[in-house]
């Protein structure tokens, strides 16, 4: 899966892609945000210091989801009224997904393009939507603030500001997120997962634990 190394156009450090379809990555050394072009890597921005965050997950964490091996290759970090949360970009052997970690509550979701979605500002708490024969009820609307990125992402994502997410749940235990950070809303479908079920390895260590 690992691709031939390239070099950071800013500092010359070696850049390795863990996932062949990654569109964007961040140089580990100089924190330049690099976007892949047909020929090379182009610097599009710079990550400022990421806020302190105590997710036990880090880039390189490995685990299992639904009998598929997963590895964490990147993340987007957001700030909201309960602190910060991470959307970890994970690569499975059958594609890529998101493992979100907010206050150690874990949810795995997959991009679900091509569904009819409510426009920005339309969804209210309590409203119901049906996707893939599952009825979802909107439970929370989160106004978040983009804080930065790390590692590889499946799309270009940088220089964002305030973004709105709508979380929805189904009676059958399914989870959905409407992401309004781009002009066209995006839907992610998945479920809450137990930490132990992910059998994660190469986690962060906590002093005293």
């Amino acid at each position, binding site marked *: 899966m690992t691709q031939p190394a390239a070099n950071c156009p800013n500092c010359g450090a070696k850049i390795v892609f863990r996932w062949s379809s990654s569109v964007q990555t961040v140089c580990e050394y100089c924190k330049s945000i690099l976007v892949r072009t047909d020929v090379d890597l182009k610097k599009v921005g710079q990550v400022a210091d990421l806020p302190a965050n105590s997710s036990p997950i880090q880039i*390189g964490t490995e685990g299992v989801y639904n009998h598929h091996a997963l590895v964490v290759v990147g993340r987007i970090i957001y700030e909201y*009224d309960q602190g910060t949360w991470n959307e970890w970009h994970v690569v499975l052997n059958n594609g890529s997904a998101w493992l979100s970690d907010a206050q*150690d509550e874990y949810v795995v979701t997959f991009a679900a393009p091509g569904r009819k979605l409510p426009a920005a500002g339309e969804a209210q708490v309590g409203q119901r939507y049906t996707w893939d024969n599952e009825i979802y009820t909107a439970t929370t609307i989160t106004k978040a603030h983009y804080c930065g990125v790390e590692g590889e992402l499946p799309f270009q994502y940088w220089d964002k500001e305030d973004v709105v997410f709508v979380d929805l*749940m189904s009676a059958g235990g399914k*989870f959905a997120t409407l992401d309004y950070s781009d002009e066209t809303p995006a839907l992610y479908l998945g479920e809450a997962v137990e*930490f132990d079920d992910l059998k994660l390895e190469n986690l*962060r260590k906590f002093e*005293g634990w």
Partner: protein
Amino acid sequence: MSASGPNAPQKPQVKSLNCPSCGAAITLRSFTQAVTVVCDHCHSILDAQDPRLAILQKFEAAVGEDRPLIPLGTRGKIRGTDYEAVGFERRTIHVDGVPYSWHEYVLFNPYKGFRYLTEYNGHWNDTSILRSVPSLDRDANPPTVSYLGETYRHFQTAQAATSFVLGEFPWQVRVGETADVSDYVSPPRVISSERSGKEITWSMGEYMSGGDVWRAFGLPGNPPEAVGVYENQPSPLSADTTKIWLAFVGFLVVMVVMLIGFSMAARKETVLQGTYAFDTNSRTDASFVTDVFELKGHTSNLELQTTADVDNKWIYLNYALINVEMGKAYDFGREVSYYHGYDSDGAWTEGSHSDSVAVPSVPPGNYYLRIEPESDFGRGNVYYSISAKRDVPQMSWFGIALLALLVPAGLITWRSMSFEHLRWSESDYAPSSSDDDSGPGDFNRPITLGNLFKT
């Protein structure tokens, strides 16, 4: 691995800060996960996400200062995972102006996140937030929620106010803030919904005894004794009730089979029969012996039936069943009496004309009976017949066995029903006739197990 890259993040450490209000030391045990933290010293509620710990609220704790039973910073094992007690709050409801309070402990593990322990009157619950929404049936009476195939019955709804806080919370905690809390029970579990504003949080608790909590956290001394029956406390008897009735049916089948077996195998052989007259006017010794008869087969009982022609009199017979070869005697006495007459209530009778007794465990051999009758002097002849039968099935033993099985089964069922009655007497559905002051919303009024048998 890139984690070992040039700018690998530092190991998160427990942060020590100072209260901006009074300068006292503040420890952040849940790393960056806490949203609010409370200064133990001056009771300022601080913004844990703010590096300067902005003061969000100050509350008066002069009244109702509370110390957590599990000191903050204590670690314990819950379901195999270590958790540290990081926060503590008291929540209060009012019923007819009377406050009732319970305590909630915030537990934290850096990998598994937050979990809660609640305590009321020595009853504990291990509680965690649900990741999916249970389906609510408002039309049921009482309303129910279904979750993972299990149905929970509505127990009560009350408005709970946060009345004391200490330590860290993964939400914006404020003293005085209220939420509508509804509990739905299916012992040993309880599902609770908390509504504040638009948001509803669902959680599930599982009953824990104080002893389990004390062991989990290695706390010294003894936990406070649990008072009364709690809403989702598992009945110590409900499992037994089913089991004992199953056992009862099992034993009943065995007994009926045994009864039929014994009855079929029994010889029921008449070995002696005779009619005798006792002259009560005579002063001579009335004792005599019968002919020798043989008791065959295995060691078994001998049923002796005495029938006497008594009319407002009695006859008492001293019997001795004597083994010819061994000389061993079984002594016993039987009385036959029959009285009748009239009084203000009408006709009455007392006693009967016959009596039956079984001499148990008589070995085979040759026997005779020595009979010595007694009665009042000068009442003429009393005629009586005796009939001895070998190996007669004794129904009375089966009756006693049946009763012996029925009594504990009945008692446990009754106690189990009393337990459920006590549980629901604290709910919104308490029968108002049973207890005048336990109206709707009478939340967890202290009751004692002693009341269980005082109905």
